[in-house]
């Protein structure tokens, strides 16, 4: 047979010539155009993980609490009392740059479907956002649209958006990162998987109709941006959160009926991905007739129907003879539900149009036989200076503290989270703004804490150690709220895998993450890899985002970061020596990114966290705060600020780390927690720390309306808390208001 496609057509499908040859070799013939489209999306980086698979295998994925590890729509962990939680994080970076509002909104919609397709009711959402320079017009456009889009979808759907993180750096100027996290709860015996089982069982299409939206979204997500990116606009989809809410209720009701065998959402690569993956996981085949697929537009071709990324759709397999029952449930919720095919025994996905086969591919060619690349690795040369500037210390400490508090990375994120409903469902115990968000689990006596953490600046300097810091910080953020860390989901945002330097960073990140996750016994239950985050040849910082979930056995032990009462002692648990390398201080006050990073002793970190959790459950500690970005001075200021619960309060603190004032105040180190407690409890806290082998000492006292910090006997900072708080609180809202 003649070669049916020109090299240009193959290239437009994101396939290399050798990948195309491999398709022909596997099929023993040339593909049809529909099949070419199917291979194109299934073999894209986004769906196949072809550059990352060999590395992801090194992550720890099993543990006592893990019920479902990577490979399904979301990971699942056991929280006791017969309940489990499903959670996952996923990127929607590229769509969010092209159309920020809809891109971010559909990112939230996609991750919510990943959760309820497992049988879980979504109860919480969070987001990790990385934008460009906060004062640029481009960032305002993207940040405004993204935040409104997240709020729109989450608020309409009725899931509380309870936390996350927001970072700004010019490295994300034309390539923002929008990583959406969701978590849901279900009984342990009510978990559903994306498997097509039972030959002859009906395959049912449910949810929204298929339109021409988002065709080749999965391929777009795997292509670098250039100035033509704006021409790619029509591939963006529009979401409908109200319809998704109906889909949620209908799916959960259908699952409860006992008539559902398997179910999978249609995300990237829509009908294609769900058809072949469900068959592959079930060890079966799936045959569908496209004439039966509900369509929003007339004249759609098989190619368009198979590659459409219309939102709010699911594919499910019902038990034999129970299709009508399932369809009636969906009709009750005013949703389309149609039998479009059946489960077969031949291990193939077969697509028919008017009864004629338009695509027929063994599932394994699209999944396990997808290309796997061992791409070359190379350590970047000379990009990061590992020497500190000589004049870095020659700065006024008070001015530097004000400047740091007003740095967009540290400043209050309330402009962002005020746009989210964080109270809907009325289970939120700790609102956004403290170290981790906490949610009561009404079905049990317990509470869940969750956090998203990344430290891209650290990872640029040293990806292995940088991500270990991020994992440690995530665990610390949970521990200071009183939670025991359970498990992790990760979102790996990197530049082009075709650069050996990127792959080196990726490989180092996996090794660092593996080591740290093993140390905390927090296995990685799933996640997402997003490559090609670069514009005009300039990559983002390597940005692995850690989503960590923890359990609090008794909600009365939930702790927040804010100083509560005049006269309480300020206690520092942990005494790692701070350093300025890679710090927010150097980035903000001196405008440089320079190493070496502070060290991390994982055993010490674990001990500090255990000590803090013990002191919390023994009801000795009143507040606890992780001491990270911006160093101890910033952490102390944050403890003083007013919250939704308490007014602002001052503190007088005396520090002596045997270092100069600037390094003492703004140097960063892991394994340090600032706690407050009644003076009478300090000896008992010290006793716990002694038993666990962690240093601990009282460094000050809560009270007054000023934050005063003495370093080795000399007053370095003495400012009204109100002045610090206004610098911290106003920065982001002010930047976003420019031009309004």
């Amino acid at each position: 047979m003649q070669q049916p496609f020109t090299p240009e057509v193959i290239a437009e499908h994101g396939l290399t010539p050798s990948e195309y040859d491999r398709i022909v070799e596997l099929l023993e013939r040339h593909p049809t155009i529909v099949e070419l489209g199917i291979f194109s999306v299934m073999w894209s980086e986004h769906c196949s993980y072809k550059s990352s698979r060999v590395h992801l295998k090194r992550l720890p994925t099993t543990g006592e609490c893990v019920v479902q590890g990577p490979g399904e729509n979301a990971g699942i962990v056991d929280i006791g009392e017969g309940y489990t939680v499903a959670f996952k994080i996923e990127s929607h970076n590229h769509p969010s740059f092209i159309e920020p509002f809809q891109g971010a909104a559909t990112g939230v919609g996609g991750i919510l479907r990943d959760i309820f397709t497992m049988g879980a009711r979504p109860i919480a959402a969070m987001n990790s956002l990385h934008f460009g320079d906060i004062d640029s017009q481009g960032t305002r456009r993207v940040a405004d649209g993204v935040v409104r889009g997240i709020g729109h979808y989450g608020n309409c759907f009725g899931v509380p958006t309870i936390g996350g993180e927001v970072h700004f750096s010019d490295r994300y100027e034309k390539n923002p990162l929008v990583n959406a996290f969701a978590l849901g709860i279900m009984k342990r015996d009510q978990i559903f998987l994306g498997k097509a089982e039972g030959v002859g069982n009906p395959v049912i299409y449910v949810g929204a109709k298929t339109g021409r939206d988002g065709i080749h979204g999965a391929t777009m997500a795997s292509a670098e941006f250039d100035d033509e990116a704006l021409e790619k606009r029509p591939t963006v989809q529009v979401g409908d959160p109200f319809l998704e809410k109906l889909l949620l209720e209908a799916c959960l009701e259908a699952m409860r009926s006992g008539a559902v065998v398997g179910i999978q959402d249609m995300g990237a690569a829509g009908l294609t991905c769900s058809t072949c993956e469900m068959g592959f996981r079930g060890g079966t085949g799936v045959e569908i007739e496209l004439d039966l697929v509900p369509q929003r537009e007339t004249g759609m071709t098989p190619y368009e129907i198979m590659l459409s990324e219309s939102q709010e759709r699911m594919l499910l397999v019902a038990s034999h003879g129970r299709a009508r029952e399932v369809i009636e449930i969906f009709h009750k919720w005013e949703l389309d539900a149609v039998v479009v095919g059946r489960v077969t025994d031949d291990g193939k996905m077969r697509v028919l149009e008017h009864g004629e086969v338009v695509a027929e591919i063994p599932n394994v060619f699209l999944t396990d036989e997808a290309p796997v690349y061992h791409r070359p690795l190379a350590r970047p040369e000379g990009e990061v200076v590992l020497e500190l500037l000589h004049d870095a210390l020659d700065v006024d400490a008070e001015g530097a503290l004000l400047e740091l508090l007003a740095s967009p990375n540290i400043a209050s994120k309330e402009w962002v989270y005020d746009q989210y409903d964080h109270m809907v469902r009325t289970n939120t115990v700790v609102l956004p703004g403290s170290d981790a968000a906490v949610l009561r689990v009404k079905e049990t006596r317990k509470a869940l804490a969750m956090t998203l953490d990344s430290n891209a600046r650290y990872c640029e300097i040293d990806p292995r150690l940088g991500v270990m810091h991020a994992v440690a910080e995530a665990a610390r953020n949970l521990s200071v709220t009183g939670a025991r860390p359970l498990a992790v989901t990760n979102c790996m945002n990197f530049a082009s895998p075709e650069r050996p330097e990127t792959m080196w960073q990726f490989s180092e990140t996996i090794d660092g993450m593996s080591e740290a996750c093993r140390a905390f016994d927090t296995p990685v239950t799933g996640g997402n890899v997003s490559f090609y985050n670069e514009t005009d040849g300039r990559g983002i910082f390597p940005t692995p985002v850690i989503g960590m979930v923890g359990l609090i056995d008794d909600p009365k032990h939930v702790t927040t970061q804010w100083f509560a009462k005049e006269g309480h002692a300020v206690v520092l648990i942990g005494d790692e020596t701070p350093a300025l390398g890679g710090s927010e201080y150097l980035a903000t006050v001196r405008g440089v990114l320079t190493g070496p990073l502070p060290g991390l002793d994982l055993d010490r970190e674990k001990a500090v966290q255990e000590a803090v959790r013990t002191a919390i459950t023994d009801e000795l500690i009143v507040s606890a705060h992780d001491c990270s970005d911006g160093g101890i001075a910033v952490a102390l200021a944050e403890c003083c600020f007013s919250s939704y619960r308490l007014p602002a309060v001052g503190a007088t603190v005396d520090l002596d780390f045997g270092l100069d004032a600037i390094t003492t105040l703004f140097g960063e180190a892991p394994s340090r927690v600032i706690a407050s407690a009644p003076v009478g409890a300090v000896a008992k806290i010290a006793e716990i720390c002694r038993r666990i082998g962690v240093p601990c000492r009282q460094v000050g006292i809560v009270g007054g309306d000023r934050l005063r910090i003495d370093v080795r006997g000399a007053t370095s900072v003495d400012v009204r808390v109100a002045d610090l708080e206004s610098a911290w609180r106003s920065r982001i809202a002010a930047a976003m208001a420019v031009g309004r």
Partner: protein
Amino acid sequence: MKAEVYVTLKRGVLDPQGKAIQHAIEANGSDAIAAVRQGKYFEIEVAPALEPAAARAELDRIAREILSNPVIEDYRLEIHE
């Protein structure tokens, strides 16, 4: 000189609002419609000093860059002397 601008979602882009309107019409007992798509309508009074050709170019730019979101919307500009 007056201008009118119609902004509508591009063909093929999902219109949840239009669907909700259609649903409301149907729920109200009418079976007269098959589909509804909704959009925005602008009436613009043009500054009197502007030359017609310059006005058209400028209104076109305004419609493209401000009144519509070119990612998901189309616009139609009509100018009346």
